[in-house]
């Protein structure tokens, strides 16, 4: 085979041209990786919101808590299910919660955003051990105090520690801030379920969440509850429920990002093609010489393909490195499945790195193919005669 050193040193010979091509590929890969990181970041934030041990009950066909209504007596029925684990004091580990969206301006832009106010019970915290109060205190006067998730406190007016906000014709003070380990709860305000239901005149629950005594019995329990005539409900593993809440937006970003990247890549591929044709044209006599030394057409073809792929791989790696810095960036937007704000980070995964590298290599392969074929098809006699 034609030595790799020959290929690499030829790439380095034309620095400006090579740099332009590498930058072109890196921009495309950056966009591709960024979109996938955004999609994956949203997905993992929601997946981490749910726990393997918990199950959640919402009204049949309601898709999400925001549309769900569980009547109070139905909530009690679920609460008496024998499949529910017991707390240390022997009480059933379940919580009825209410989920309400309120408009609150973003600190950054002043635009109104939909924030979740979750009415919770003391058991809610037990069911979500990841949630920890990191500043302030728990509410004492449940009728006028709430606590805020870390991201909510940061991003929305009136949600920071000690700040006041108005909803349900009442003024509320944020007396505590909690950290939910980067999960969806970080974007929520929590208050007492009775008070929240009361001020919004919604004498209902949105969901019931409980710890399963035996997670292997989930299917049986699901079937039993869903077939209970007294209520029309859907039962999900909590983790699966939250993962499904990312489906629309994460899917849209992932697929849309890929389509845009592919369209975007056309320009960069043509750029690579120009570079590679020039590379072939500059070395016609060298190609003839190599052939006369006994290197086959295939060896020439491969050598130029490797050259193109080495350039695009470098661009790809540069793009991935650039995109990895996005990992420090947090984004908050409306989750289309819940209509509520959710904050999440760009997040890199091995799968994304591999996909980005493959994407870059394919760009090099496509851009380098025709020039490499041209190089391989040169007639030795003609190419030796070239200036």
């Amino acid at each position, binding site marked *: 085979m034609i030595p790799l050193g020959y290929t690499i040193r030829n790439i380095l010979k034309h620095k400006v041209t090579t740099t332009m091509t590498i930058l072109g590929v890196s921009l495309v890969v950056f*966009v591709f990786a960024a*979109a996938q990181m955004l999609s994956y970041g949203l997905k993992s934030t929601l997946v981490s919101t749910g726990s393997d041990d918990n199950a959640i009950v919402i009204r049949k066909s309601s898709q999400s808590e925001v549309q769900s209504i569980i009547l109070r007596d139905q909530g009690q029925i679920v609460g008496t299910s024998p499949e529910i684990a017991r707390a240390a004091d022997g009480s059933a580990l379940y919580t009825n919660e209410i989920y309400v969206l309120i*408009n609150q301006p973003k600190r950054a832009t002043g635009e109104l955003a939909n924030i979740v106010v979750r009415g919770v019970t003391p058991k809610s915290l037990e069911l979500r051990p990841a949630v920890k109060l990191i500043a302030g205190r728990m509410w004492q006067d449940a009728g006028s105090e709430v606590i805020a998730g870390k991201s909510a406190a940061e991003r929305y007016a009136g949600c920071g520690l000690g700040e006041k906000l108005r909803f349900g014709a009442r003024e509320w003070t944020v007396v505590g801030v909690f950290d939910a380990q980067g999960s969806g709860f970080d974007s929520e305000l929590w208050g007492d379920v009775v008070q929240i239901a009361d001020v919004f005149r919604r004498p209902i629950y949105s969901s019931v969440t409980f710890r399963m005594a035996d997670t292997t019995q989930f299917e049986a329990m699901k079937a039993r509850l869903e077939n209970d005539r007294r209520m029309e409900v859907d039962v999900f593993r909590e983790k699966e429920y939250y993962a499904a809440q990312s489906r629309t937006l994460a899917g849209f970003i992932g697929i849309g990002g890929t389509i845009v990247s592919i369209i975007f890549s056309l320009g960069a591929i043509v*750029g690579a093609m120009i570079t590679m044709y020039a590379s072939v044209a500059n070395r016609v006599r060298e190609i003839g010489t190599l052939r006369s030394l006994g290197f086959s057409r295939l060896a020439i073809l491969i050598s130029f393909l490797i050259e193109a792929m080495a350039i695009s791989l470098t661009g790809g790696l540069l793009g991935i490195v650039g995109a990895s810095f996005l990992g420090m960036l947090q984004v908050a937007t409306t989750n289309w499945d819940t209509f509520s704000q959710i904050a999440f980070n760009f997040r890199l995964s091995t799968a994304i790195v591999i996909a980005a590298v493959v994407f870059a290599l394919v760009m090099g392969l496509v851009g380098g193919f025709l020039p490499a074929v041209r190089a391989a098809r040169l007639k030795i006699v003609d190419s030796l005669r070239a200036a």
Partner: protein
Amino acid sequence: MKVFKLIIRNAMRHRLRTFLTVLGLALAVMAFGLIRTLVDAWYAGARIAPPDRLVTRHAVSFTFTLPLAYLEQIQKIDGVSAVTPAVWFGGIYIDPKNFFGNFAVDPVTYLDMYKEIIVQPEELKEVLADRRGAIVGRRLADRFGWKVGDKVPLIGTIYPGNWEFTIRAIYHGRDKDTDETAFLFRFDYLDEVMRETAPGRAGQAGWFGVKINDANRAAEIGAAIDSRFKNSWAETKTETEKEFVLGFIQMADVLIAGLRIISYLIIGVILLVLVNTMVMTARERISENAFLRVLGFRNFHLIGLILGESLAMACAGGIAGMGLLAMTSRLVGQALSIYLPGYYVGLETYVIVVAAAVIVGCLASIFPIQRAVSIKIIDGLRVVD
């Protein structure tokens, strides 16, 4: 004119490279245009909202409903000429993937207010004669192959149960941008069912469409409506229809921002491709340019030649790209029409493309010009590559 000829001849020396450069630019311009148009289309709903229409909704968020009784009270406020109730139904047709907007509206007052929705009078009569009658947009009907008389089942998400409607009318949009993908059915039917099954939820509207006499008084009238319900348990928030629609459009703020950034990056790729070609050209012409200077050509001649060639390629790429954009945007528009009406390339996009081509053409020639001008004649002549 001789100079122009030389520029073209120079560009044609490497036909393949020139072709590829123009192709690369054209593809990037096309991508830029397609993405910009997507952003434009996304905002179409807000763009076309007339200034004399307001929306009154619950102050807490759109998930809360308002008492239907508010309708009469809003009607009485000075400057209000019409009010119509509507509710977001959020039903699912077979599978959540088949998403489309479905609302309960009062057909007569609704169509009276939203003039861009055109329903044939005889079809409207049919709707009014059937409690479960529905009016569907032309594109939505096309998407699922629905005809007048077809029965459409919806699974309720907000309003439980399985609902069945009969299509009695298919509406057309008055304007190119009008959304033809909505599913409208009778508000009084929904209300009646609620009265029977969940009396607490009867007599509620999701929002009220409000038409006003004078668009200039929109802010004032909106404030008047909101103050009317201040300190009640269901306070209102009244905004222009444009603001209301923007509120929903903002749900995609991250995507829009992302697309905007990408569109600028694409201009970067255009620049890279052209700079690449111009650098190659400069390298090949070093001795030739030196020779031209020996003949007595001055720096500005060389600058003209190089800049001219760069601009010629940039403009050819821009023009070819606009051609590609005109063709592909049509296909994309058709493919997206069921989700996103109003996908067509605006004049502004074409203007930006032309401007970008000129700027990129100039930028790409800087480096080669600097190289051609700074090299000593004697060094230039010596280079044989």
